């Protein structure tokens, strides 16, 4: 019989090793799934994890994509991880991402075609503000009326999606677009665009913002009393109150930071890689970032690595669809497996597995 025994202190070895083990287990289970779909599992795994970076033909296109996809994931996941550590569950980053993009793009387009230096910085502020406002709604509802922020923030995503459709068909529609939905292309409006800085790298302002967020979150959690209070509130809420943490303030702070970072991610995306507001502007970064946050163990450095890994499976997954004809659902299932295994083997850092019969029942 197998049983679990709680460790006296969390194992440092397993805390580091579980993400690696989860990736390996995902490759095995995913490989079996690909085999069941009639594909060569080794080809599929290689196409997902290796070819995007090193394939002689495709790598030149897909390598810059790595940073382009990873940056919003990391930026959003960093914000979410602070709340998750404190036991505040913002599930609606996707909506905050949309609202940041809408407000940021709206500010930029309002100045069209003026060429002023402050337009892009102002859009950045507006983007963060849009995400922050959208996150404040579930935050205030929770602190005022004790609603569940998981449900409210999630439902706010669908509202944001509808506002996005309405905006791309109405207020923000490109007047010179021949009636097609979608806004002007910001990448063709230099004062409001977020261009690739070095050709062929995928480097843009969003990547820099993501790296800065990683460093800031690391310092906050390791060195600052606020980070300590965030961890404390998540681990032992009553001890946090005893330590003097104000639970209401913490909810507003964590929701606010995660909303603002998601809004920023949306702004950098709309002004850069996406270029414009359109009905299908959002592609699920806000939800995938939840996986990234947990895959990175809610640790800023872990999130950086997890974001890159997740971006790789996205790009590799697209490549596998295109090269091997794998269905999109299979790729999503593969990404789901990653989270599943991560949560499952996470147990090992706090418990050890013992084989043999129970000695006593308590």
């Amino acid at each position: 019989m197998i049983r679990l025994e709680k460790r006296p202190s969390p194992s440092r070895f397993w805390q580091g090793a579980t993400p690696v083990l989860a990736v390996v287990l995902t490759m095995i289970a995913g490989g079996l799934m690909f085999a069941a779909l009639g594909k060569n599992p080794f080809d599929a795994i290689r196409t997902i994890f290796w070819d995007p970076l090193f394939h002689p033909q495709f790598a030149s296109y897909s390598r810059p994509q790595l940073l382009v996809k990873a940056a919003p994931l990391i930026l959003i996941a960093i914000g979410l991880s602070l709340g998750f550590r404190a036991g505040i569950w913002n599930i609606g980053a996707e909506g905050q991402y949309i609202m940041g993009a809408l407000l940021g793009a709206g500010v930029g387009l309002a100045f069209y075609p003026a060429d002023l230096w402050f337009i892009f910085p102002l859009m950045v502020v507006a983007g963060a503000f849009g995400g922050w406002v959208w996150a404040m709604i579930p935050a205030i509802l929770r602190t005022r009326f004790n609603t569940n922020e998981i449900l409210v923030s999630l439902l706010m995503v669908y509202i944001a999606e509808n506002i996005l459709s309405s905006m791309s068909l109405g207020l923000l529609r490109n007047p010179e677009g021949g009636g097609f939905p979608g806004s002007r292309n910001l990448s063709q409006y230099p004062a409001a665009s977020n261009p690739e800085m070095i050709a062929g790298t995928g480097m843009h302002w969003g990547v820099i913002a993501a790296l800065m967020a990683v460093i800031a979150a690391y310092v906050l959690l390791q060195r600052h009393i606020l980070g300590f209070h965030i961890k404390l509130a998540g681990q032992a809420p009553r001890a946090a109150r005893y330590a003097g943490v104000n639970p209401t303030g913490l909810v507003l702070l964590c929701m606010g930071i995660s909303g603002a970072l998601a809004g920023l991610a949306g702004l950098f995306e709309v002004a850069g890689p996406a270029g414009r507001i359109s009905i299908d502007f959002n592609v699920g970064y806000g939800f995938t970032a939840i996986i990234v946050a947990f895959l990175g163990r809610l640790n800023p450095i872990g999130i950086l690595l997890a974001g890159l890994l997740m971006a790789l499976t996205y790009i590799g997954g697209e490549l596998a669809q295109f090269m091997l004809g794998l269905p999109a659902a299979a790729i999503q299932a593969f990404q789901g497996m990653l989270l599943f295994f991560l949560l499952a083997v996470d147990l090992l850092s706090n418990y050890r597995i013992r084989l043999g019969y129970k000695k006593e029942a308590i």
Partner: protein
Amino acid sequence: MTRPDLLRVEGVTKTYPGVVANSDVSFAISQGEIHALLGENGAGKSTLVKMIYGLVKPDQGRMTLRGASYAPVEPRAARASGVAMVFQHFSLFEALNVAENVALGMENPPPMKELASRIRAVSQEYGLPLDPARMVGDLSAGERQRVEIIRCLLQDPKLLIMDEPTSVLTPQEVDILFKTLRQLAAEGTAILYISHKLEEIRALCDEATILRRGKVVATCTPRERSAREMAELMVGATLTPPARAGGNKGVVALEVADLSVASPIPFGTSLKNVSFRVAKGEVLGIAGVAGNGQDELLLALSGEVKAARDAVRIDGAGIGDTDPTTRRKLGLVAAPEERLGHAAAPDMSLVENALLSGAVRQNLTRNGFIDWPATERFAAAIVADFDVRTPGTQVAARALSGGNLQKFVVGRELSQSPSVIVINQPTWGVDAAAAASIRQAILDRAAGGAAVVVISQDLDELLEIADSFAALNEGRLTTPRPVAGLTVDEIGLMMGGAHGMEVAHHGH
């Protein structure tokens, strides 16, 4: 008179990783005997009775019940053999009534009506009046204990194990309980009575087995020994009572006036018009049966629950509506009763836990940035000064034993040069030597000019260290009185007497 042995325990040994809980323990209980199991916290009493009740399996040794081999694999088997146990912590559902709670503990409960009449009959017979239709959430601790006892008595036990039964009772309620236990013993039920309260054991028990560090160190007849002799057998050392400086008290440092707050705890007790004053250098002891507002009083004083501004004053300034950080800045420290999860974060290291409440007064942050080296020094100083047994300061709090964590938590608060100290259950779960050193440390702070409020359920402790004494009863505090000259009866009445519970003994 020699009565036949009911239960014999022979050479029982139980080892946990790193600890020998019981080593070669032997003793016997005869029918109708009240047998005390005496020992400090951690002496192995609980492990021993868990083995008798089938919760834990011994590694070695054997037990016989009425001459037959007895090795219960689970509590159900123990109950089937006639062994029943009343735990220190009740397992009752507050939102269910008495009869429903009793039914939940039975293998084949009879219909509710029949059960209710049986509960009434048994409760009358043993002088434990109890209304089967009442909600457990509304009962006092003493009445809840009655539910547990009656649940056991309905199984007609041959051996009744009682784990620290008087820790939740007033002196008057203790008297009622003892009458019941004597009546049971007279009818032939053996009682295994676990306690560390020596006077009770001298009053009640026929025989005593004294455990120290998992071994039987003595068996004696309690009536023939003095409490001091037994205490020294239990501790294995000569005890020195704490020394205290004579009391010239200063000005009032902490003043609580008409403090009323609703309890944030479900089924908790709200505080009603609590008033007291503590002067610099004074120790106020607050007694009371568990669940009469002790937790709420600590929360209201620490700042975790807010009250009216002028309900709590430090040095004359109203702070009743301020948060814990503000109060710490003014010199107030508080140590809650629950160590894991309230006073300390279980999964955090001792260093992080030192920061938890020490950040403000020890200046462990600069512009919000944590000074980890200073925090580590603070944690190491607590560990050294209060003899916390731990491999290091990076160990998670949950890895420490209860007593060691208690020393750490109390030490952390006392090490912050406080001017007002509020402690709930300062020596809960620590061994006698450590308890003595904690009490000494509290008295030293008082001698240094701190105003101290000690909330405790251990009357002996309060009488030993307090200058004045008050009791909490259903959220109300009695008027504090000087300890000198108080009698146990008066204290009992302050704690609420028998809580309206009548002695209903019939002459059998």
